[in-house]
Each structure stands twice: as C-alpha cells, then as structure tokens.
C-alpha cells in the first residue's frame, strides 16, 4: 500500500484560541464551577488512591506499562503494518488518515456509502479531537453521543472539559436543567437524583440504539498481533453501539497500538484503577474484524496520525504518546481544579493536555500551555505509564516563543548571576537601594513588604505582599564573622 507522509502538525480541537491565563480567568471567578470541580476531582482521586494502594505490585505494573509503550514507540511503523494485516485478515477494512480533515472525510464517506443519515457514537477522544461530529453534521449526518456525560455535553451545546468525565463542570441540578430543555420526552417532574437522570438518558438513548445502522467508536487499545480493538467503559452504552448496528467505524490514534494480546494484562489493571478508581471497569468490549452472523458485518478502522509522527520524532517529548487517557493527572492537578478543562482550549485538558496539545500542533500554536503548571509533580506521581510530565513541560518551554521583555530580563539576570563579582555587587545594590524603603515600611506596617506595585509586578502584589531585601544580605553577615 502507498503509505502517505505525515504532516508535521495536527488539526482539530487541539488549539487554544485564547492564551491559558486569559481562558482560565472566567473559570477561576466562577464559584459554582470551582465547587463542582473541587468536589468531583476530590472524590475520584480519593477512590483512585484507595484502589491503587491495595495493589502490591503497582510500581512494577507502572514500569511494565511504561516499557511496553516505549517499545511500541520504537517500532510503531512495523506494528501498524502488523495490525493492518491482522485486522484485514479478520475481515476489517483499515484506512489511513494523515490528519483530522482526512479522518473526518473517510468517516463521512463510509457513512454515506451505507445510506444512513445518523450514527450513534461510543465515547471517544479521537473523534472529539478530529471534530468528527461537526464534520458529520456538515455532511447532513446526525451524530448522537451515547455516553451519558458526552450526551449531557452535546445536549448542552458545550464541549467536554475532562477526558473521563466530560461533563465534570456540571452538577446534577444543571444536568436536570439541560435534560428538561433538550429531551422532548423527559417527565416534567424529573428529579436531580443521579438514578432518575440516568433513567431519563437510558430511555432517550434506547430508541437511538435500536434504530441506528452505523456506529462510530474510538479504541483504548489496538492489538497488533491479532488485529483486535478494545473499548473500556462503564455504562454499557458503548457495548450497545459496538454490537447492534450493521456498520462499525473506529477512529484510532496510531499510538494506541499494543504489540500482543497478553499486553492487555498490564493495561486492564492500570486503566480502571487510574481512571474511575475501580478495580475493574464494568464493560470491556473486544472485537477482531467481522464475526459472520454476530455483531457488525461491515467493520472499518481509521488509523489517525494528526501530528503524532511529529511527537514521535522528539525523544524527550515522545512519552506523551504513552498516555492511556485515564485522567488521573487531571484529577490531582491543582491548576486543573481551579482553571477547569475548557481553559486548555483542547479536547486534552490538564497536565497531559499541556504536553500533548502543544506537541500535536507545534509549540508555537499552543505556546501558553507548557506554562500552565507549577511543576508540582503530582501528575507524574499518579501517571500509570510514568510520563514525566514536568520534565516534558520544561522541555516544551524551551521551544516556546518567549516574550521580548521577558527575554531581555532573563538575559540581564543571567549576565548578572553568572558572575560572582556582578552578583555580589547586585546584592549590595538591592540591599542599599531598598534599604530606606524597607526601613520606612518596617516603621509604618511592621514588615519589610510592599503591598501595591505597578504592572508587571502587580501580577504578584495583587494577592500577596512582596518581601523587600533584608537590611543585611547573608554574605554581608558572613563577611562580618
């Protein structure tokens, strides 16, 4: 087969429209959203911690997961061809997509060929990434999300804000309001009890499952040696989509490959514990091509690059492709908890998004994301495949375009600090220059701190007092010894 050359960068919903600090501002000011996120992330990270702590070989599992993914990245072209051969032999048709637009075009054409004007969808990050729903709609095909949280987001004309829990930014009262507004058949007295909301969604979706002729999914794993695709889920709605329609189209990022079926032993332990905080997820669906007379008889796999080859080419940034989309890093991230997922401007929010989105698009197109972290390291500690997110963030900051004033300041500081003589002189100057002011503030307020400074120092003094240099530097004290 004629293999296309992948473009350097990806398209779709992976670019920030506003710089992260600007995009985060409304979320930080939204106390309802902050409360929703705080409650939800705290609950999930507590569950995760409990089920991870009970696994005696958790660290060994993480090492294994990391090693298998590194192996996949080293020989990805070979494994992709092996997958294509295995899946084709089992009756599936494999398609290759360079980028988001090409992947969408393939899915639209395949759907059109069936004559269907609607598809049911299994929750999938890849299809959100390539903006497939929008492409289908433009082609006159309705796409119905069937994952409960994706359905809430879709009915709310919103975008997901979390990888695992796309509607994490809503509480149940807000969800009831969306259902009452957008589900024509919902009871007028619908309560906001989770079971009542789930029942309303169930009734709404059941009709879709029974009438749909085409389903679109992603895949958590694609097994090279057997050609098997795997979807891990909680609700069973995915299972409905994967078994009832005649045609099944799966959009799969090329990094989802695993060499062998037995590798699932590692990942089916790592994923549920890291993502939902469960020992085992309720539904794991696996299919290998077509089984005559059982399930979809027209099975397609669309393998998508969309910038992944560029990530693969960078040995420091490459481990971002190991991500299994568990969202453990989102749930422990103090920045995510305050800023929410939409601030990241990409379907991949949180710490993993801050390293993945800029690599898929090229850092210049997402230059604020590598800075959307305090480098506290909580994400690295919980990552089931041990992606060193802080290290990659720093690596990407290196490639980000730097503002002129910042570059000048950093240059001067480096020039001063690289020289012991200049540094000592700068310390004397800082102490002497700030001395009278410090003494004045000490008399006035009892502390050598400043409360209000003009821009850009106002970024600090808006919420914290700024300490002034001490009356005597440490080296001056030492010199007097």
């Amino acid at each position, binding site marked *: 087969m004629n293999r296309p050359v992948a473009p350097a960068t990806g398209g779709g919903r992976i670019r920030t429209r506003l710089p992260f*600090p600007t995009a*985060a*501002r409304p979320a*930080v*000011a939204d106390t309802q959203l902050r409360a929703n996120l705080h409650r939800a992330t705290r609950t999930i990270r507590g569950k995760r911690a409990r089920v991870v702590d009970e696994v005696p070989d958790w660290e060994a599992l993480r090492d294994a997961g990391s090693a298998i993914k590194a192996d996949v990245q080293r020989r990805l072209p070979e494994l992709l061809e092996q997958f294509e051969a295995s899946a084709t032999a089992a009756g599936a048709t494999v398609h290759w997509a360079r980028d988001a637009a090409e992947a969408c075009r393939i899915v639209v054409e395949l759907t059109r060929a069936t004559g269907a004007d609607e598809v049911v969808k299994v929750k999938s990050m890849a299809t959100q990434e390539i903006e497939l729903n929008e492409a289908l709609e433009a082609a006159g095909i309705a796409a119905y999300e069937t994952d409960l949280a994706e359905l809430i987001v879709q009915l709310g004309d919103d975008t997901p804000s979390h990888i695992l829990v796309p509607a994490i930014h809503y509480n149940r009262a807000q969800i009831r309001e969306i259902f009452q507004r957008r589900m024509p058949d919902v009871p007028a007295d619908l309560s906001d009890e989770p079971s009542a909301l789930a029942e309303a969604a169930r009734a709404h979706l059941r009709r879709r499952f029974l009438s749909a002729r085409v389903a679109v999914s992603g895949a958590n794993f694609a097994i090279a040696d057997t050609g098997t695709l795997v979807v891990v889920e909680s609700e069973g709605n995915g299972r409905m989509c994967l078994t009832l329609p005649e045609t099944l189209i799966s959009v799969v990022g090329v990094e989802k490959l695993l060499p062998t079926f037995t590798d699932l032993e590692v990942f089916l332990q790592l994923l549920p514990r890291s993502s939902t905080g469960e020992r085992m997820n309720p539904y794991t669906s696996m299919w290998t091509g077509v089984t005559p007379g059982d399930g979809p008889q027209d099975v397609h796999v669309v393998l998508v690059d969309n910038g992944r080859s560029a990530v693969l080419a960078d040995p420091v940034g490459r481990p971002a492709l190991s991500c299994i989309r568990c969202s453990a890093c989102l749930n422990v991230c*103090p920045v995510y908890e*305050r*800023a929410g997922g939409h601030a990241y401007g990409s379907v991949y929010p949180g710490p993993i998004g801050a390293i993945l989105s800029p690599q898929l698009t090229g850092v210049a197109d997402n230059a604020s994301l*590598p*800075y*959307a*972290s*305090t*480098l*506290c*390291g*909580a994400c*690295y*500690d919980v990552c089931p495949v041990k992606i060193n997110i802080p290290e990659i963030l*720093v690596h990407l*900051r*290196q*490639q*980000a375009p*730097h503002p002129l004033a*910042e*570059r000048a300041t*950093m240059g001067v*500081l*480096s020039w001063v*600090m*690289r*020289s*012991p003589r200049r*540094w*000592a002189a700068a*310390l004397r100057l*800082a*102490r002497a220059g700030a001395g009278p002011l410090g003494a004045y503030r000490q008399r006035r307020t009892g*502390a050598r*701190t400043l*409360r209000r400074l003009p821009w*850009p120092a106002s*970024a*600090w003094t*808006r*919420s*914290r*007092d700024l*300490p002034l*240099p*001490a009356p*005597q*530097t*440490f*080296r*001056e*004290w*030492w*010199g007097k010894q």
Partner: protein
Amino acid sequence: MRIALFITCVNDVAYPATGIAVTRILRRLGHIVDFPTRQTCCGQMHANTGYRAEAMPMVRNYVDVFDGYDAVVVPSGSCTAMIRDQYPRLHPPAASVAARTYELSELLVDVLGVTDVGADFPETVTYHPTCHGLRMLRLGDRPLRLLRQVRGIRLVELADAEECCGFGGTFALKNPDVSTAMLTDKCARVGETGAQVLAAADNSCLAHIGGGLDRHRSGVRAVHYAEILAATGAAS
C-alpha cells in the same frame, strides 16, 4: 565534617536569617561550615522558564565553586531538586557534586544521623511540605522528624498539605489568577489549623504563602523550618 553552604539567591538577598540559622545549627552540632562567596544562583528560574542556555553559566559556576566539598547543604528543597535532578542532565560533569548536595533535613537525618538538634521553640507550628522536596527529593517526614524533637513545639496537621501552594516560580506571574486561587485555598487551610507559625523548607514558597497570609492579616508567621531548628531562646 567540612560542609559548604549554598545559600541560594533568594535567601541571600531576602532571607539571611535562614542562612544564619543553618550555620548555627551545624556549628552547634560541631561541624565546620564554609560559605564560598563565589556562589551565585542554581539557575532554576531560567531553566524552568525555558531559558536553558541562560541557566548554563550558573550551573557551571556551581560545579566550579562546590566540587571540592564533601557535602553541600542547601536550605531549599526546590534548589536542591534543581541541582540533583536537572544538573546531571544539563551538564554531565555536575553529577558528582550534585549527588553530594543535600537539602538541610537530608544532611541532618541521613548524613549526620541526628534528629534532635537541641532546639527550643514554644509555639504552635504547622508544616507545608513544598512540592519539589516532597516529590523530587522524596524528603518524606525528615523535616517533621526534626521538628518533633524541638522542645516546646506544638505541631498541628495541615489539611491538604501536599497540594501545591500555587507559587511555581514564574507561574505566579504568568498565571496570576490560578496562582491566587490556589494561594487562597492554601491560606484558608493554614488558617484552619490555628497555628501561629507556618513552616516549610523553601522561602520562595513561604514568600508566596506568607505574602498571602500577611495580605489577609491572618497573624500567622511564615518561617523557614531551619529557623525553628536554630531557635534556643524563648522565641525566635
């Protein structure tokens, strides 16, 4: 044991009391402390903000200044983590001195084998484990083991202690809204403890949290834990 003190740039200019405290603790324990005056800064701010080339002269200067010492003590978890974690990657000849560079609690507990440094500090203290000490150096409970031996101290637990305070170096300036939101929550947790003193291993994080506590007139003092370990009088 001949121990060199790397004071760090922030401490030299704004927190000399922390360096004085480290010197006093080590001398009290019978060690010789040296302060090589050619030291400057570890380069972390530059390296972590995306200015590796600008950080490199500082990295090389650190190696030149400290390579001859048996041990280097640093009263900062973050600067120690920069040296131990990043230096060997940035500048391979730095690996040897990086391995002999210790955060204060590591030097006291692991190298010198002491937890009781003869301190006296009769106040209520809560301890915030700063991120790089916690997750890059894995300091664990070393600072708390030292604090528990202090005469008169009342240690109270900080809720959500392991959550970042929102400082993050240049993060505090680049993302002021998110940083402030994290700070507000951290200050609230500190306030709930009823402590008089918030202790930590990094004056940069303490400048952030302390700056927020002062702004809200909480009355809680932010103090580097070295200053508590150095205290011998009725109050520091």
